[in-house]
C-alpha cells in the first residue's frame, strides 16, 4: 500500500497540472463567450458544460478511447498526465461558469478606454480586466482546484489506480475501503477534509476582504 504522503503529493501534483491545462483554456473560452458576439455561443456553452451534466465515468471512457492503445493518442492512458487531463475536463465547466460571471462584471468601456490611451491587449488584460474581475477569477481558480482534487470517476477509468502514478487521494481512499483497511482510509479522509476546508477558508478570506467596500466590480471607476 502506498504511503499517505506519496498519495497526497501526487494528488496535489495531478491537480496542479490539471489547473495549468484548464485555467488558460477556461479563461480563453470565457473571454470569447463574454466579449465576442459568437454565432455558436450556445453550442460552445453546451459543450463546455457537458462534463458537469455527464457521469464522470463517461468522461473517463471517452478519454480512454482517445488515449488508449487503439486511440489517436496511444500511450497516454494510465499515466499521471491522463489523471490530470481527466481532472481538468471535469473542472473546466466550473471554471468557465465562474469566469464568465467575473468577466461580465467588467465594463468593456474601461478596456476600450485603456486601449484608446495606448495600452496593448496584453497590458489591458493584466492591468484592467484581470484586476477588475479578480474576485470571480479567484473563485474560479479555487472551485476548479477543489473539483480537480476530488476527481474520482473519470480518473479511475482512464488512469487506473497505480500507486505513485495515478492513485490520488480519492482513489487511495477507495482502495483502502475496498480492502477493509478502515484506519488507513480514515487517515486519507481526514487529509481530504483538511484540503477542502483549507481551500474554502482561503476562498472565503480573499472574497470577503475584497467585499469589504461592498462595491460591485464596476464601481472601480474612480473609487
Amino acid at each position, binding site marked *: *500500500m502506498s504511503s499517505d504522503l506519496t498519495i497526497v*503529493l*501526487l494528488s*496535489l*501534483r495531478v491537480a*496542479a*497540472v490539471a*489547473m*495549468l491545462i484548464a*485555467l488558460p483554456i477556461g479563461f480563453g473560452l470565457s473571454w470569447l463567450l463574454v466579449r465576442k458576439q459568437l454565432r455558436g455561443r450556445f453550442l460552445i456553452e453546451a459543450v463546455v458544460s457537458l462534463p458537469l451534466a455527464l457521469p464522470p465515468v463517461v468522461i473517463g471512457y471517452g478519454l*480512454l478511447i482517445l*488515449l*488508449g*492503445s*487503439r486511440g489517436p493518442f*496511444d*500511450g*497516454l*492512458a*494510465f*499515466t*499521471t498526465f491522463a489523471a490530470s487531463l481527466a481532472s481538468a475536463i471535469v473542472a473546466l465547466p466550473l471554471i468557465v461558469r465562474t469566469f464568465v460571471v467575473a468577466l461580465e462584471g467588467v465594463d468593456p468601456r474601461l478596456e476600450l478606454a485603456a486601449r484608446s490611451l495606448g495600452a496593448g491587449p496584453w497590458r489591458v488584460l*493584466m492591468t484592467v480586466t*484581470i*484586476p*477588475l474581475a*479578480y*474576485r470571480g*477569477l*479567484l473563485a474560479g*481558480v479555487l472551485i476548479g482546484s477543489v473539483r480537480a482534487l476530488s476527481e474520482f470517476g473519470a480518473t479511475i477509468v482512464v488512469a*487506473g*489506480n*497505480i*500507486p*505513485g*502514478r495515478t492513485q490520488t487521494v480519492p482513489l487511495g481512499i477507495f*482502495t483502502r*475501503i*475496498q*480492502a*477493509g*483497511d*478502515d484506519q488507513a482510509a480514515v487517515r486519507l479522509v481526514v487529509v481530504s477534509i483538511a484540503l477542502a476546508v483549507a481551500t474554502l477558508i482561503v476562498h472565503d478570506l*480573499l472574497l470577503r*476582504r*475584497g467585499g*469589504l*467596500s461592498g*462595491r460591485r466590480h464596476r464601481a*472601480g471607476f474612480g*473609487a
Partner: protein
Amino acid sequence: MVTTWIRVAATRVMAALIAACVLLSIGCGGNGEGDSILVFAAASMSNVLVGVGQEFENESGVEVVFSYGGSNALARQVELGAPADAVIFAGNGPLDQLEASGNIVAGSRLDLLRNRLVVIGDAGSFPLAHIRDLASTEGRIALADPVLAPAGLYAKQALEMSGLWEGLGSRVIPTLDVRAAVGAVDTGNAAFGLVYATDAANSSGVTVVFEVPEELHDPIIYPAAVVKGGSGTDLAVEFLEFLVSDGAIAVFMRHGFVSASE
C-alpha cells in the same frame, strides 16, 4: 485607494497560485524513474507481494511498484496501454486473453503458484459440514465479481456445481476483487464470503468455515508473464526469475500459497 490595493494584491495572489501550480507540477512526485518496474497483480497477492517486492529491491536495487485489482480488469487495462512491465494473475483466463492480443513477451509466461478456495464467516462463525449448508444460513454472501476477477469465477463455479447458485441469487454481493469480498465480511457487511485461503489467513476478523473441495472449480493457478513494450522488460524478466527462486517461494508458502511446480 484601498480597493486598488486589494486588487493588486489579489492579482498577485492569483499569480502566486498559478506559480505554485507550475512548481508543484514540476517538483512533486519526482518519480525517481531510475530503476523501477510496474507490476499488475491479482488483488489476492497484495499481502505477500509487499515483502517479496522489498526483498527483490534489497537484492537488485530495483524498486517494484504494484497495482492490485481483479485480474480481468487489470488485463483489460494492459490491453488498453497501461504501462505494466509484468503481470501476475489469479487465473489463466486473463493471461490467455493478453497473450492472444499480443501483449505478452513470448516464452516469458510461467505458472507461479496455486491457491485454495474457502468459505469465510465473521470471527464467531461455526464451521459448515458441507458447502450446501450455506443454503440454510442467512445473510449476504460476498464474492469477487466473476466478470472482473477469477476468484469470483471459481466461487461461482463451486456454487453452481453444488446446485446453490440459482437459489442464493439475491444474497450474493459481487465485489470489485477478492480483497473487497474479505473486507465485506470483515466489516460485517456480509455474513459469508467465498475467497482464497490466503486472504482468509491474512484477515484476523474472519474465520474459515469451510474448505471448498478443488473438484468443484477449475484449478486455481497464478500465472505470471512479462508485458511487451514496457520500459523495464529486462528488469521484469529478472523479477520473474526472482519470484520462482527458493527464497521467494518460501515467502509465498508462509502466506499459504502452494508452489505451482509441486
